[in-house]
C-alpha cells in the first residue's frame, strides 16, 4: 500500500493549535464540531449533516452487519485500523452474498491521541471505501480519558444489497460440498504480532487486509451454487472450519498439504512455534460449494489469487468434527483455537 495519499494531504487541523485529541473534542461543543468538520467531513464527503442518513435502496433484500475494531498497534505492515474497519464490515456483507452500499462509522478516541494519527486513519478509510465503492454516510465521535482506550476504537455498521436468490449460511452446507480457500493464510496475524511484540525479523510480512466483494460477486454472477461463505478472521482457518462444522452438523475433512501457506509465514511459525491454521486473516475467505461447481469456482478464485485452493470436503462422520489428514496419511483433529496466540520455546 503506497503512502502517497498521506503525502498529498496534510492534516487539516492546525497542528500548533490542537496536535492531540482533548476530552473537549468529545464534548458536543465548538471543539467537537471543529474536529468533525475539519477531520471527518473533509474526506467523508457523503456524510449527511443530520443525526441520521436518509438513504435510497433498490428493490432487493438488504443485509446489515456491524463490527468493532480494537486492534493494537494501529498501523502495521500492509494495513491499519482504518482499512480494517472498512474492509472488515464490507467482508461480512460479502459473506452473506451482499454488495456493500453504505457504512456508518463510530469513533472512540483516547484523550491525547495525535491528530496526525487520526488523519492517517481517516485517509486510509477513504481509500478503502473508494476501492470497493461504499459510501460512509453517518457517524459518531466520543472521547474517553487517557488510559481508557488504545488510541482509537472504531465501529462500522454496513448495509448491503443481497445479490443472490439462495440463502448463504452454514445451515445450507450439504454432504459432499467442497471446501475452497481464497488465498494463502496466516499473514495478517503474523504481521500484527511481529509489529506489536517488536520481533525483529528481516522479512517483512504484510497483512492480507483486503475487500472480498469482487471474488464473491464473481462466484455468484457465474451461477456457482455457493452454500456458505466465511472470512477467516480471528482464530484463523481452524476457527472458521470448526464453527461451520458445528453449525451445519457435518464433519469436515481437510488435507493439510493442500492448505496454502506463504513460506515466510511458514518459517516464522516454525521459529516461534505457532500453528498457521490458528492465525487471523483479514482478506481471505472459505467457501463451501456444491461438488458439481467446485472446479469452476476454483478457477474463478484463482483469477483473484493464485494461491486459492481446494482444501477439503464435507463428510458424514462425527458432526462438528474437523479432521486434518497429515502428509503421512495419519490424522489429527483440528480443534478450535483456545484464544490468545502465544509463541513458544518448548
Amino acid at each position, binding site marked *: 500500500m503506497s503512502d502517497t495519499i498521506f503525502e498529498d494531504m496534510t492534516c487539516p487541523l492546525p497542528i500548533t493549535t490542537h496536535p492531540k485529541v482533548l476530552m473537549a473534542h468529545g464534548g458536543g461543543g465548538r471543539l467537537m464540531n471543529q474536529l468533525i468538520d475539519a477531520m471527518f467531513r473533509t474526506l467523508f464527503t457523503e456524510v449527511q449533516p443530520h443525526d441520521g442518513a436518509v438513504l435510497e435502496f433498490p428493490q432487493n433484500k438488504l443485509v446489515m452487519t456491524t463490527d468493532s475494531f480494537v486492534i493494537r498497534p494501529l498501523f502495521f505492515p500492509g494495513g491499519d485500523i482504518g482499512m480494517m474497519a472498512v474492509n472488515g464490515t464490507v467482508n461480512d456483507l460479502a459473506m452473506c452474498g451482499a454488495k456493500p452500499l453504505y457504512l456508518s462509522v463510530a469513533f472512540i478516541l483516547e484523550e491525547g491521541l495525535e491528530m496526525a494519527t487520526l488523519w492517517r486513519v481517516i485517509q486510509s478509510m477513504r481509500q478503502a471505501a473508494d476501492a470497493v465503492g461504499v459510501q460512509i454516510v453517518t457517524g459518531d465521535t466520543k472521547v474517553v480519558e487517557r488510559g481508557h482506550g488504545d488510541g482509537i476504537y472504531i465501529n462500522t455498521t454496513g448495509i448491503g444489497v443481497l445479490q443472490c436468490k439462495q440463502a448463504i449460511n452454514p445451515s445450507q452446507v450439504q454432504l459432499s460440498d467442497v471446501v475452497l480457500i481464497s488465498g494463502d493464510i496466516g499473514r495478517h496475524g503474523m504481521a500484527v504480532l511481529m509489529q506489536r511484540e517488536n520481533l*525483529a*525479523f*528481516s*522479512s517483512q510480512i504484510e497483512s492480507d487486509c483486503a475487500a472480498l466483494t469482487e471474488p464473491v460477486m464473481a462466484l455468484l454472477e457465474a451461477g456457482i451454487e455457493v452454500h456458505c461463505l466465511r472470512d477467516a478472521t480471528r482464530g484463523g482457518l481452524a476457527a472458521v472450519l470448526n464453527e461451520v462444522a458445528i453449525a451445519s452438523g457435518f464433519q469436515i475433512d481437510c488435507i493439510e498439504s493442500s492448505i496454502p501457506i506463504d*513460506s*515466510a509465514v*511458514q*518459517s*516464522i511459525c*516454525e*521459529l516461534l*512455534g505457532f500453528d498457521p491454521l490458528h492465525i487471523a486473516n483479514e482478506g481471505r475467505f472459505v467457501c463451501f460449494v456444491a461438488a458439481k461447481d467446485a472446479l469452476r469456482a476454483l478457477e474463478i478464485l484463482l483469477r483473484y489469487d493464485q494461491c486459492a485452493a481446494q482444501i477439503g470436503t464435507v463428510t458424514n462422520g462425527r458432526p462438528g468434527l474437523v479432521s486434518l489428514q497429515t502428509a503421512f496419511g495419519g490424522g489429527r483433529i483440528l480443534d478450535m483455537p483456545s484464544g490468545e496466540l502465544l509463541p*513458544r*520455546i*518448548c
Partner: protein
Amino acid sequence: MCLAVPGEILRIEGATPLEKMAQVKFGVIEKSICLAFLPQAKVGDYVLVHAGIAISIVQQDEAQRIFTYLDEIGESNP
C-alpha cells in the same frame, strides 16, 4: 521442550567471544542470533537455534544417516 530450528549463517560479527552474533537465515526470513557457544562456526554453516541462541552446528554428513540407516534396514529385511 526445546523448539530449535535450523538456519544458515550469512554473516558473523562481535568484538569478543561473549558478544559473537550471527545473521541467520531460516527459510526466507533472517534474524540476528547469539553465536557465543559455537566458536568454530563459520559462514555457510547451518546451526540449530533455540530461543535466539545457536546451540549446535548441523553435521551435514550425519543428516544423511537417517536415510542410509533406512536402506540398511531394507536390505536386511527384503
